[in-house]
């Protein structure tokens, strides 16, 4: 009996000390001059620039959970499994992809690929891909304001997007969000378009039917939006939102 008690104590002690790693790497993959540690999960194939197994396992847990949350919103039908490249040296990725200096990640939505720095918001790049393939239909027209806006609106960060937009607008002169929406040259500074676009797309989600909102995701120009919502209603929605921002 005494030995059984000792044995149980030892088993319990070692059971507690054993590293609790949910997911072991499923392989490795060489591309872009990096040997990636891969972890294939049910929703996403992860490619880690590093070799830290426990950290990568937890990281993939968080993103699988985020993916599940976002699937409920976007009902995506992807042509292939999402591939998520996690860079621990994102400077290297910027050099390869010619990404802007301020960026922390980007999505190649059509190819179902994301390249990210490990600390960017859980949802942002996932949303780019899932919104692109919402209901299995890719967008016909593109607007940076709508595209980045929806990624910020559903980035799964817990912050007040209207307050963030108001705060940012203290440093910029803007008469209406139409100026950001109508920006074919994509000249709007990223410091402005992300928070204001995020707040706007969150607001539009609250004000639209599902059909209207997802039609907007597929037809993103302001002219398209006039057809979806009706010119008068869209004007009213924009005016109300401008008022919320104090424009």
């Amino acid at each position: 009996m005494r030995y059984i008690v000792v044995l149980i104590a030892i088993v319990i002690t070692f059971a507690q000390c054993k590293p609790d790693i949910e997911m072991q790497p499923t392989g490795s993959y060489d591309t872009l001059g990096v040997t990636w540690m891969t972890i294939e999960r049910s929703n996403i194939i992860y490619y880690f620039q590093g070799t830290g197994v426990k950290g990568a396992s937890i990281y993939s847990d968080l993103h699988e959970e985020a993916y599940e949350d976002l699937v409920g919103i976007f009902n995506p039908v992807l042509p292939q499994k999402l591939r998520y490249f996690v860079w621990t040296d994102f400077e290297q990725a910027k050099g390869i992809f010619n990404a802007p200096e301020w960026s922390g990640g980007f999505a190649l939505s059509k190819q179902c690929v994301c390249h990210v720095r490990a600390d960017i918001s859980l949802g942002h790049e996932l949303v780019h891909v899932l919104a692109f393939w919402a209901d299995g239909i890719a967008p016909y027209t593109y607007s940076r304001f709508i595209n980045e806006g929806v990624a910020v609106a559903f980035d799964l960060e817990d912050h007040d997007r209207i307050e963030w937009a108001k705060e940012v607008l203290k440093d910029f002169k803007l008469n209406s969000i139409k100026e950001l929406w109508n920006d074919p040259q994509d000249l709007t500074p990223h410091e402005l378009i992300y928070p204001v676009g995020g707040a706007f797309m969150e607001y539009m989600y609250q004000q639209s039917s599902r059909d209207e909102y997802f039609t907007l995701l597929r037809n993103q120009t302001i002219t398209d939006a006039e057809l979806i919502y009706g010119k008068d209603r869209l004007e009213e929605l924009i005016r109300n939102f401008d008022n919320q921002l104090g424009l």
Partner: protein
Amino acid sequence: MCSTCAILLKSTFMKYTLIALLIAFTPLCALAQKHSIYADVGITNVRLLPGGSVTYNYKLTGFLGAGAGFQVHNFFPTITDEHKYVPALYADLRFTTWAKRKNSFISFLDFGWDMYKKDNEYYRDSTSVGFVPHNNGFYNSLGLGYFHKVTKNGGGAYVTLKLMLNWYNYREYSILAEEYDRSLLAASGSIALSIGYKF
């Protein structure tokens, strides 16, 4: 909103609590000046939310006292937690300067136990993922106070400024390489400005 928070926000409740403490402790202190109670209410630098503390003190020498106390303040207890009301029990060491003059300064050092239930969130940076494995933390504070007018019994109104720290364990798992996995002792701090009365 937690019940402690609701209580603290009811200023009427606080007013009557202070009156009750005043009535209860003034005779006690008159009988024995070696025993005193410090009761204060204040705000932290976290959205200026209110909190308070009550500390019992036993005078060991003319300038040194020791005791114990209880406080509730609002702050971010760990890197992964939202700001919340955190109750704490602590042991207290208190030094008084100019003990025989009308006005005086005090400084105090507290050690104790912050009581909170951790949020099960993860913190991420560009190379790692981390989390707080345990509830509760080690409380430590360092403060300064000023009495403008000390009464005959050694009591009076005071103002204090204190730095409060919650020490906790933090586990970090590197994505870069396992050799960088580590367990850290981390501290989360806030500052409280309070007014109170020594009974």
